[in-house]
């Protein structure tokens, strides 16, 4: 790898690049999916290649190839330089990365059980057992289960002298029960541990074992069936709402994680993912939430899905304050955007989805720090409200202000107790008003770092794996029950 990297960087410098980096990436993915008592998918995918990023004539160029051969390395570097020179045709100013970053080191995800050494038969057996437990419940129409394991090895080298190797390992799993009633046209779903297929972390197979899929399967299926005949979520323009930690994780992702990406704040995503309401004039000057809202970007949380050693610019992983006692105090930055806004050094959030994509600013682990409430005390303290759990639908505008979420399941809270089961629950709001009405966050005992393995951004499209730590939290005056 070092030979390829040195060759690429040498050609880049000789042919006029003022900066170049190369990433050589190999990613193995194993996926097992079961459905209705049968194995539906067993696959092992490997992808490898190199991506070269250069600055020439003051502008960016990037080229990538799956062929790891010296002749191809030269072609790719020259292509990247040609692309950079074409980019320069429209430049308003030269790219400025600020102070050089010289990182040397190695990082490896800490795993107790390497998931790629666990026999496939054991994984299949576990999923089928959970599936069988769900299918025992009368009224379930479709049952599914999934495991995903990822191992990514990457080498980053730059003309500034960085040379880094990293191995990131991820394990993910989930089960789903679907219940339908054609007469009423009702379709209800319950997922565990999280929706959209699975929960995932940078950990080994021990993470799968801890999830206790089989033990939770009957409850998941029973709830899906019970939802068919549950009352619909009532409409209320000023409800008290408690979100479970998994739904709150997605709320953080959409309404805090995306608007703090400094590339979109500065307009880079204007035509696609959108811009942000958190414009630079609001930094250290805007009340994002109530006093109990404290949010950090932390790429160092052990085992979290957005945890790594270095970002794809070679900047070491770090923890950054984003919202402190409700005040907006920080962005996710790259070397170029941090320089542009005079924020000092990058806080290390540039990540690429594989060898064939350039790094862009991505969430690491965007965590709502734990508060002081126990879950039981919070429910007991709520006289009239709703508990919503597990995301079912999500949508937010292009500035990240107006959001609407639906959850798989909800309960009414009356007199400090969870009571009536409710289906088709939805809530909607405006980001700073919603976080401004947060009056309680639960404590560390209820805090979970959820994995979001499906965050889309960028053109060409890139998928990022992000983490979000959260404990249940309470919000006042929320509009709920949007479905007629």
């Amino acid at each position: 790898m070092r030979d390829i990297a040195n060759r690429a960087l040498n050609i880049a410098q000789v042919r006029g690049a003022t900066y170049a980096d190369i990433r050589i990436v190999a990613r193995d993915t194993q996926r097992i999916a079961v459905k209705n008592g049968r194995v539906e998918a067993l696959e092992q995918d490997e992808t490898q290649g190199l991506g070269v990023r250069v600055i020439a004539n003051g502008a960016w160029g990037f080229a990538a190839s799956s062929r790891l051969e010296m002749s191809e390395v030269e072609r790719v570097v020259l292509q990247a330089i040609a692309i950079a020179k074409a980019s320069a045709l429209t430049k308003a100013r030269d790219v400025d990365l600020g102070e050089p970053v010289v990182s040397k080191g190695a990082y490896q995800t800490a795993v107790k059980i390497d998931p790629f050494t666990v026999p496939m038969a054991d994984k299949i057996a576990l999923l089928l057992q959970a599936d069988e437990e769900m299918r025992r419940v009368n009224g379930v129409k479709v049952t599914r289960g999934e495991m995903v394991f990822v191992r990514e090895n990457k080498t980053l080298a730059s003309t500034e002298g960085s040379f880094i190797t990293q191995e990131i390992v991820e394990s993910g799993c989930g089960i789903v029960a679907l219940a339908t009633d054609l007469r009423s046209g009702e379709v209800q779903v319950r997922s565990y541990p999280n929706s959209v297929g699975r929960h995932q972390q940078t950990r080994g197979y021990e993470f799968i074992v801890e999830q206790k899929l089989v033990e939770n399967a009957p409850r998941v299926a029973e709830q899906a069936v019970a939802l068919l005949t549950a009352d619909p979520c009532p409409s209320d323009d000023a409800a008290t709402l408690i979100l479970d930690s998994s739904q709150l994780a997605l709320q953080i992702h959409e309404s805090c994680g995306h608007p703090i990406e400094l590339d979109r704040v500065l307009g880079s995503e204007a035509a696609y993912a959108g811009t942000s309401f958190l414009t630079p004039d609001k930094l250290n000057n805007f009340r994002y939430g109530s006093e109990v809202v404290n949010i950090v970007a932390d790429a160092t949380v052990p085992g979290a899905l957005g945890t790594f050693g270095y970002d794809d610019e070679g900047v070491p992983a770090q923890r950054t304050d984003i919202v402190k006692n409700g005040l907006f105090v920080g962005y996710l930055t790259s070397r170029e955007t941090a320089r542009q806004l005079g924020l000092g050094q990058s806080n290390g959030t540039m990540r690429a989805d594989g060898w064939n994509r350039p790094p862009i600013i991505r969430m690491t682990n965007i965590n709502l720090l734990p508060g002081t409430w126990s879950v039981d005390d919070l429910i007991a303290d709520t006289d009239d409200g709703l508990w919503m759990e597990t995301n079912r639908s999500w949508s937010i505008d292009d500035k990240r202000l107006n959001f609407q979420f639906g959850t798989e399941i909800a309960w009414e809270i009356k007199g400090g107790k969870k009571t009536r089961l409710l289906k088709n629950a939805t809530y909607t709001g405006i980001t700073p008003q919603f976080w401004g009405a947060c009056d309680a966050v639960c404590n560390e005992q209820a805090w979970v770092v959820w994995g979001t393995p499906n965050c889309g951004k960028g053109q060409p499209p890139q998928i990022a794996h992000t983490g979000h730590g959260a404990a249940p939290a309470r919000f006042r005056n929320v509009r709920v029950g949007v479905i007629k």
Partner: protein
Amino acid sequence: MLGIERVRELTQQILALSKADETEVLFTGTDAALTRFANSQIHQNVAETNTDIRVRVVCGKKIGVASSNDLSPDALKRTVDTARVIAQLQRENPDFRALPEPQPIPRVEAFVEHTANFSPEQRAQAVSVLCKKAKAQGVVAAGAFATTALEIAVANSRGVFAYHPVTYADLNTVMTAETGTGYASFTHADARAVNVEALADEAIDKALRSRDPGATEAGEYTVLLEEYAVHDILNFLAFVAFSAQAVQEDRSFMKGKFGEKVMSESVTLWDDGCAPDTIALPFDFEGVPRQKVVFVENGIARGVVYDTATAQRDGVASTGHSLPAPNTMGPLALHMFMAPGDTPKRELIRGIERGLWVTRFWYTRVVHPMKVLITGMTRDGTFLIEKGEVTRPVKNLRFTTSYLDALNRVRAISRETKLFINDWGGASRRVPALVVDGFRFTGATQ
């Protein structure tokens, strides 16, 4: 691009390596480039060369899949071996019968050399035109210009060999004029067909007219949906309703409705991967020729798409709509069309007493699949219509409405249609603009 003979040789080489009862190879070759611009300058400019093989082996009724983008002899053997080892660990799938037999595949020309050879300088020149026009009007340009060449092939041990090269160019832009934004996009197999100036003019005009939007109350409106918005409606119908798997699992409104009226009489929807006016792909990822499938004809529910597995379940033939193995999603319509009407687009606004002009939708998600209940936002050009004319821009609105109900309340359909290709998955759609009554908006943004 490897070309048909090299791809044929490669796939045969892989099939020869397999000792399984049946083997299938899906080959995908990609030469893709994309120039991205924002703040009226290029800020990201990329190119990618990749070749990928996906091998499905069948041992009795046990199936395993492995893929790799390493085409070295060792890697090919490793991939085939991995697929076989996985298959042997598998449990028998009693539903599986056999890989598809060879069938005649229509030849569709979809590869344009000019698009495949489009250079970074040519993309930069186009972007430069957009940026200059933007600056001249005091607006800011953002967007992306992609040119892509693909070659897709499927071969199996029963004698299937299908190969198809295809290109497309896609240019989209959002122009920002202080508080207003305007969108335009264009997709075509031939990059020479992209009229950059016209696209710039459309987006700039809309951005300028969108400045200083006012508030408008949520509620039900008659809406004029431009093609950009209608495209989204077809995307969701494909996913939640027009797949045999969705019907078999009782989660599609089409279940039990075939032959019945489900939409307005003016609505006809179909899928045709061999049509000349789409980004064609005449076979699916199992090598089965794509059939034209009519979903809704003059408002009447007619059919859904099948792959081999769902077809066997219903005792019918596959319509050629499989996704790559191992496919848990079921079949999917990738080349949808909506029939045009007879009203010129510029005349659609006539007769709308009070309504909204919607350029496009954003961040749309399913709230309830059976009802095709969708929530999302308007974006990049939303206007109030009063007495048949656009009177003022309005702030973006959130809708929570049934796309199925919307297609039951179609008042008019434009004569013109527009082609789209999705960023995610490459599905193409050709759609007209629509006027729809009773579209439900549930909130507004700031």
